[in-house]
């Protein structure tokens, strides 16, 4: 029966043949347990790190990890923050959208949506786009939270927990949905520009028909890369959604691009480097199979992935060989890592946030 469902054993860690880089921790701090809410992600902006946790505690840290301000709220934060018009936008399990001032964390506004928010919001100077768990997509005014437009799409009977990011560009918002389709909405009116299926549900039982597009979307100039759990990875033209190429690869985590490789970790935690022009595989790294790998992050010429035991692995972008490893958090990394100004930020499931750098092995310090 379907391969996806066999309970597989994770690969053991192997000795690294020729280590070239090592992780050097800058600082680390503790936030409340994120209870598997992959939509709660640290925000790197203006040299600062903003992070909110599931107990409602929001804090801003500087590049050295010092707390600039911290605000205790009783919102059951479950997604965000996104930066919009100087405000940090969060979603909550009680179905609210909340905006707090990025300067001091005071609440600017909060509004009711129709269901819990687990998809990370996105925003910019004059628009916030949020998604509620029941398939609705909202366009809000970052100033006062007033609802500009709403779009409604049905949700299959059984879906994958978690949701990918939403991308925003000058004229459209791109959303990967739980029904296996990607939709582009006009950012001012909310009208759909185009809607394309990444995977179509197949199989008899509900579980075989899961096709969520939960992996983070990736926008590279005007090509949108999207991957679904249903087993397809597609490159779409942002102008009209036409499929440039398509290949079979199931992923629920995310992708990154370093100019040469389109990196993606698939559902069995194999790290791929694909040719962005046709999706052909340049190399694949399967020594970390079934270790619940996070989305890949291109960093200083290599690519980083973290696994379910909190190890971060550095992989050579040339041939995919593992060239470094370091334990960064004490449990799974179930959300994409982020980098800014040469520092990588990783938030573990248990709530530990660590900033670190990767330096060549033989370098001093």
């Amino acid at each position, binding site marked *: 029966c379907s391969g996806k*469902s066999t309970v597989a054993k994770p690969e053991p860690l192997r000795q690294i043949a020729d280590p070239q880089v090592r992780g050097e921790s800058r600082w680390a701090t503790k936030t409340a347990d994120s209870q598997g809410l992959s939509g709660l992600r640290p925000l790197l902006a203006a040299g600062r790190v903003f992070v909110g946790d599931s107990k409602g505690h929001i804090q801003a840290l500087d590049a050295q990890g010092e707390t600039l301000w911290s605000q205790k709220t009783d919102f059951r934060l479950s997604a965000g923050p996104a930066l919009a018009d100087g405000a940090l936008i969060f979603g909550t*399990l009680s179905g609210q959208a909340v905006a707090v001032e990025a300067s001091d964390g005071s609440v600017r506004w909060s509004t009711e949506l*129709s*269901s819990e928010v687990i998809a990370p919001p996105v925003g910019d100077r004059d628009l916030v786009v949020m998604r509620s*768990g029941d398939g609705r997509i909202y366009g809000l005014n970052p100033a006062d939270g007033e609802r500009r437009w709403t779009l409604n799409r049905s949700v299959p009977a059984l879906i*994958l*927990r*978690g949701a990918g990011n939403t991308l925003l560009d000058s004229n459209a918002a791109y959303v990967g949905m739980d029904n296996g389709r990607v939709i582009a909405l006009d950012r001012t009116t909310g009208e759909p520009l185009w809607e394309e299926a990444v995977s179509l549900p197949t199989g008899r039982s509900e579980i075989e028909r899961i096709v969520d597009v939960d992996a983070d979307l990736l926008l590279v100039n005007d090509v949108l890369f999207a991957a679904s759990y249903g087993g397809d990875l597609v490159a779409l033209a942002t102008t009209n959604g036409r499929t440039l190429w398509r290949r079979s690869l199931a992923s*629920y985590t995310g992708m990154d691009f370093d100019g040469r490789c389109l990196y993606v970790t698939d559902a069995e935690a194999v790290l791929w480097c694909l040719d962005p022009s046709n999706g052909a595989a340049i190399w694949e790294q399967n020594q970390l199979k079934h270790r619940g790998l996070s989305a890949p992050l291109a960093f200083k010429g290599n690519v980083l992935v973290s696994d379910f035991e909190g190890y971060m692995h550095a992989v050579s972008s040339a041939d995919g060989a593992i060239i470094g490893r370091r334990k960064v958090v004490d449990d799974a990394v179930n959300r994409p890592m982020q980098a800014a100004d040469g520092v990588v930020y990783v938030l573990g499931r248990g709530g530990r946030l660590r900033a670190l750098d990767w330096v060549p092995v033989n370098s001093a310090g």
Partner: protein
Amino acid sequence: IAPFQIEDISTQGLQRLEPDTVLSYLPLSVGDQLNEASSQQALRALYNTGLFQNVVFLREGGTLIVRVEERPAIVSFEIDGNDKVGGDELDQALADAGLTPGELFRQSLLDQVKQEMQRQYYANGFYGVSVEATVTELDNNRVSIKIDVEEGKPAKIKSINIVGNQAFDDETLLDAFELSPTQAWRLFQSDDNYSKQKLLGDLEGLSSFYMDRGYLRFDVPSVQVSLSPDKRDIYITINVSEGEPYRVEGVKFSGELILSEDYLRQLVLVREDDTFSRRLATQSAEYMEGSLANVGYAFAKVNPMPELSEDGQDVTVNFNVVPGKRTYVRQITFSGNLKTNDETLRREMRQLEGAVFSRNHVERSRTRIARLAFIQEATVDTIPVPGSDDLVDVAFTVEERPPGSVQFGVGFSGSQGFLVNGSLTHTNFLGTGNRVSLELENNQIADTISVSWTDPYATPDGISRTVAAFYRKSEGVIRYSSGFDSNSIGSSLTYGIPISEYSSFRLGLGVEETSINTFATATADEVLRFVAENGSNFTTYEFRTGFGRDTRNRTIFATRGSLNRINLDLVLPGSDIEFYKASYQLQHYQPLFSGVFAEINANIGYIENYGDTTTVPPYEHFFAGGTGTVRGYRSGSLGPRDTPYNNAFGGKLRTTVQTNIVIPTPLESDNKTTRLSVFYDIGNVFAEPSDWEYDELRSSAGLAFEWFTPFLGLLELSYAFPIETDPSIDREDRFQINFGGGF
């Protein structure tokens, strides 16, 4: 093959089946014309038998050759690894599908079963399951089938998140859910296994929770069920829109009421100005349906329809009555009574044939049958007579209980130590419902022969008559006290006269001759004094009367109702000794919570002499201690002592109260043949009523288990810890066993 006239038919390829079996299914016969149509039809017929994998028609001259390939027979069928989904319903499903040894194998059937098992695993959250089937060919066209199941771990519910609830917080709402998120502290938690049926049930429960509190516009716009990528955790999100609570503005009736409106209004639990509650409305409707069914409208339907006012939050409850036709009972049938005569059951009927149907009469009839000592279970259902819209048959199904107890050889009774005795008690003698008991007893203490015969229906209206006679010769001691012999012989005739459905009057006469002989060295002083004052040979004529009211739903292992019984046995003036014995018995069943109920047995017994008899004969004294009175104490050992031997002497007044908290057990036989209870007994016996003192009462608590055995009647095992006790004189008997009683 070109169409031709069939001159002969022969078969090829048959291995297990007989040729004429094939011919019997073949719609063609010699002389028919074989053409396109008839051959198609014949092929289809043969395939429909399910016996053949492949059928081919050949022609040899004028003979039609039917070459068949029989389906292989299944020799062995094995499934392993399936402990979660399986058991006998699966075997039954396989047998029905024809996948068992001896049947014919069909691949499509096996795929169906594999698919069905997978579906069942998914439905119970085993998303990691893999089901593989292998078919191995054997010789002689036989196959053996093996299904391997690898279950993996079931997905557990990680969280249930209710969004949009203002009036009640998640915690209270989730309280009534059958499903619940995994709670670490609950070790053997099973309600965190996801199942779609249970979720639908919980949603149903959620909406009735709101409806019962007036939220008539409550709605669940959408529910999301999501699974973590590693298929271990399930997240359930329920989006609700509560709306506002509605207040009851008034109640009205519509439709054909049959009974008067103010009669119906008494049955309405919905009160004005309360917030509307669907539960109360439904319950009121059920009461009305019940009353209508009591007067013949067996299929009456009463729908409580809330009518919302446009403005504001008010609702008027409109009870719409659809009585249907007044129904009559065509026939009453009994099934399952292999050892009981039809009349023994039919005479308990409060519903007659050829009469208007009455629900409470039928229900009361069922209870009366269930109360019979030889009936363990009685169920009834009302079946509409096909072809008529107002006739029903009432079908009773009874499960008979072993009718009596046969004791033989060595018996053990708490009060008299080891007895060699034989006793036969049969409560359904030859199926007539008459109770017969014969008791023979000879052991070192007493020789007894006693016979009793009870006919519950001496008259068609249920006047019962009991005839009893006994001869008892007991040397040494009675209840090992007071060292005297007594021989007595007597007989009695007692009638039970019903004076209402639940109460009856007791009337009877008894005559008894007793003689005591005492021994200076062994008999207690009190007895010697009694004999000195009143003599040692007595002939007594006894008048028996009493009144009883019994609303229990069963006589053995009752769970509801109560029994009050007052008896007075007066030895008539002019007998050699004159005394009277009065007793009051209360047995009451009080439901407590969720299936647990209490059984209270209170007894007061008082005996007093009158006329020139100086005191009550010692052999008539009440004794206390043991199974029937205060458990945990040696039988009959409580109360006053005689001098100088310090044996229990009994007394004139006995007061005992036994409180059993009956605990429901998962046993299938619970409250049918077995019962487990925790008990607290308190009581004692006093020489004179004036001696009664609260702190003189002895009490104990413990655990009791009753089992209705196939042959020995009711067996009661109890283990008790004495609480209020005086160790210097009380003799404990923590573990006690008693059988043969119960009816």
